[in-house]
């Protein structure tokens, strides 16, 4: 029993080790090499070239402002929403669940594009309307700016921050607050002196995760930063390797090293903080009901703010894309616009061989990649939660490591690797890189599913005479189905919209949806972009529905016909 487990752990360690360590090592070696074709010939020129560049200072400053600004904004909004939902009598609480889940279904690239369509200075719809209404000379908003980037990135990071802070707030012992009230502090003082300090680890964790995500963010700076010439590290690195310029993977790797180092450090700080916040959250389920704070007259205005936020995060992006896909050129919604509606962009896109190829590739990567990824995640989750040897501990750290991987940097690392192999420019290169970058999205739901399976459930099956394999098939897997389904959805929807790794590794013939959309965006083909974007969102949604359906049927089948 122990021996099979040890063998399992070591083979997993080899696989996950390859996926996570390989791109990092290749990135490091590549940064000291003279070029893709001269791998291993040592030079320091790339570091000097990358960091001594006069544009570098401006890029760093932009990056710092972008990252900190968006993370602070996302965290503040998340605390506000979480507090309203868990602690007050705000109406329509179901909205909060939607607000925290649905935006994750809308790809960052499309979200950014929709805001560009609304707020760009030349013909953004909101700007055009406001100019007409108040007879303004200039557009009031310019989304092609650092402020615009910060706002959009903050909205994108908000759901994750909310999902970290809200559970902490929900499971926090209300007696701590009640005693503060008993000793004479008002609700506001209680919030500032008791609630927020106790929640500090969770809030900090959300903030740090925001930093890591915005540091790795590529869609927002590419779509909103490039037109206004606002460069951050991610887009700066992309410029170095993008095909139009003279690509220099060495310089990109040299810059990528510091982005990666920062991300890895931050993600370990994040991990320490979440461990800390779990320590704080130690109320036993005693069936208590937290008393809700009555908002009184502020109830409706606060709800209005939440509704507005939901509108901006869910309804507006999808509506704008849908609308744009039907009008012949960018115009403000009007009777005339609706009379001119056409299916031209849709037929164009559906007859465009490149778009169809991208669609096919993305579907293959989503279904095949998620299936492989979940399979690997099941074993890794099992080893991490149930085996608990030292090797399993290393496995956990390794699988967590890729959580910090900035897509574009890891793409550059993998580029150095794939160029040395026949996998270069094949769809398998993308598959491997996707798995490496998104493994934690499979491992985490699986690990928490395993945590919920008490070891007695497994042991009693063994004592009953079932082998390890039978136990896995009849006890563990059926209990894991919800975890498997959610891991699969998460990975598949990540893969269908994947942009940052693909932007480096995709070659003619291995285009994916996001790459094709980015190409339309660069060419200003908003109608075609919107049509293809809607297809992408539809696939994500269909994946979720299908996985839910299969999961429900499977658990019913297991329950019914276990004989």
């Amino acid at each position, binding site marked *: *029993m*122990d021996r099979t487990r040890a063998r399992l752990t070591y083979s997993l360690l080899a696989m996950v080790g390859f996926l996570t360590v390989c791109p990092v090592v290749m990135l490091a070696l590549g940064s000291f090499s003279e070029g893709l074709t001269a791998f291993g010939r040592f030079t320091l020129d790339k570091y000097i070239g990358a960091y001594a560049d006069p544009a570098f200072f401006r890029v760093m400053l932009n990056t710092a402002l972008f990252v900190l600004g968006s993370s602070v904004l996302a965290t503040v909004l998340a605390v506000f929403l979480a507090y309203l939902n868990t602690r007050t009598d705000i109406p329509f609480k179901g909205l909060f669940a939607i607000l925290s889940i649905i935006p994750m279904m809308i790809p960052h690239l499309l979200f950014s594009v929709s805001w560009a369509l609304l707020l760009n200075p030349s013909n953004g719809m909101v700007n055009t309307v406001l100019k007409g209404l108040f007879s303004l000379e200039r557009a009031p908003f310019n989304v092609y700016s650092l402020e615009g980037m910060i706002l959009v990135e903050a909205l994108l990071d908000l759901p994750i921050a909310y999902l970290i802070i809200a559970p902490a707030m929900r499971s926090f012992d209300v007696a701590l607050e009640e005693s503060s009230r008993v000793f004479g502090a008002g609700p506001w003082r209680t919030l500032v002196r008791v609630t927020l300090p106790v929640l500090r680890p969770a809030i900090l964790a959300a903030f740090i995760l925001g930093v890591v995500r915005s540091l790795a963010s590529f869609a927002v700076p590419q779509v909103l930063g490039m037109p206004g010439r606002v460069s951050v590290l991610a887009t700066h690195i992309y410029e170095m390797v993008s095909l139009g310029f003279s690509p220099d993977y060495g310089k990109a790797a040299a810059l990528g090293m510091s982005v990666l180092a920062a991300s890895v450090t931050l993600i370990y700080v994040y991990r320490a903080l979440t461990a800390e916040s779990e320590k704080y959250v130690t109320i036993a389920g005693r069936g208590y009901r937290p008393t809700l704070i009555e908002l009184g007259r502020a109830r409706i205005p606060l709800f209005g703010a939440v509704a507005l936020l939901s509108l901006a995060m869910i309804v507006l992006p999808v509506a704008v894309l849908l609308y744009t896909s039907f009008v012949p050129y960018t115009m403000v919604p009007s009777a005339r616009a609706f009379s001119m509606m056409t299916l031209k962009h849709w037929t164009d896109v559906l007859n465009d061989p490149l778009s169809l190829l991208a669609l096919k590739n993305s579907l293959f990567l989503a279904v095949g990649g998620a299936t492989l990824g979940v399979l690997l995640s099941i074993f890794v989750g099992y080893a991490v939660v149930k085996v608990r040897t030292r090797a399993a501990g290393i496995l956990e750290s390794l699988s967590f490591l890729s959580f910090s991987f900035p897509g574009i940097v890891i793409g550059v690392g993998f580029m150095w690797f794939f160029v040395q192999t026949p996998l270069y420019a094949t769809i398998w290169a993308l598959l491997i890189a996707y798995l490496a970058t998104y493994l934690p999205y499979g491992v985490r739901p699986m690990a928490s599913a395993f945590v919920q399976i*008490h070891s*007695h*459930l497994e*042991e*009693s*099956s*063994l*004592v*009953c*005479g*079932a*082998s*390890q394999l*039978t136990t896995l098939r*009849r*006890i563990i897997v*059926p*209990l894991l189905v919800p975890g498997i389904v959610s891991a699969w959805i998460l990975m598949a929807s990540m893969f269908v919209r994947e942009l940052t790794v693909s932007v480096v590794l995709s070659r003619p013939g291995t285009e994916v949806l996001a790459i094709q959309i980015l190409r339309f965006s660069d060419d200003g083909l908003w109608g075609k972009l919107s049509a293809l974007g809607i297809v992408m969102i539809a696939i994500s949604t269909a994946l979720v529905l299908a996985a839910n359906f299969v999961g429900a049927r499977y*658990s019913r089948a*297991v*329950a019914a016909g*276990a*004989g």
Partner: protein
Amino acid sequence: MEIQVRGLSRRYFSEGREIRALDGVDLTIPANRIFTLLGPSGCGKTTLLRCIVGLESPDAGEIVIGGETVFSKAQGISVPPEKRGLGMVFQTYAIWPHMNVFDNVAYPLQVRGVARDAVRERVARTLEFVQLEGYESRPATKLSGGQQQRVALARALVAEPKVILFDEPLSNLDAKLREETRKELKAFLGKLNITALYVTHDRVEALALSDLIAVMRAGRLVEMGTPQKIYFDADTQFVADFIGRANLVKARVRAQEAQRTLVDCALGAIACQRRDLPVGAEVTLCIRPEFIHVAPGAGAGENVVNGRIESQAFVGESYESEIRAGGELLLARIEPHARLATGDAVHFRLDPAHGLLVAR
């Protein structure tokens, strides 16, 4: 089936320290008896059970079940749990939440490849035995705690193992249900010809259920015997104190008689149950509260102790009183209608048979 355990050791490493969960345990569990491992938490009783069932691997020693060696460090034998053919009831019951009652109970037969009809028939018989007939298609998690307990028992019994193991099976039930289930369990086990190994930290449970009790402490076996022997005649102070409430008084052996041993202690000269102890030995006199029958006023005579009630607490069926006697504070049970008040002088005569001497 008889279970033999020889020289069993199991170490853990926790935060850099070595913990000896089992430290050279030798034990023979006779066939077809209810055998209880009793001890405070962390004494190694659950580890011993898990080693016997095969869920943990000892670091040294041997385990023989019914003549078959299932574990031997020296011979490199380690039979996996699924091949040991035992039945077990877990502390959490471990009822599989995705299966109904029938599937839970049928599982051990299904994995043994028993034919469908036979499975149906044997499950029905077992469910009838634990008085759960008609519950087959209920989702197992929708049952009450006591019913889940019986499902767990049915699952452990259905494949007719020769040995059944219980890991604190009553500790998840509330006090009233625990008592009922304990009686039920004893009745069920009484009807079967089976070796039962039962682990608990609850002394009442151990006394009420067992044919034999083994008391453990810090990974070692301290004492083994019938419930009566353990309760009235413990050899060590630890066991005497653990198995029931006891007043422990320091004493010194003064003389030995044919039937009795005389000691000097703070209560005076007391005649006790005969123990082979040398004259002058430092010992502990152990008196259980229920054997202190107080009467009002002062008394005189052999083994009569005089004292004064220092405090009383009404606990329903009696008063729990503390009596100050000769500088010692003795716990005693006083009948609720005895009409004694704090500060009253009282006396009691200790029956030498209830004066238990244990080595210090």
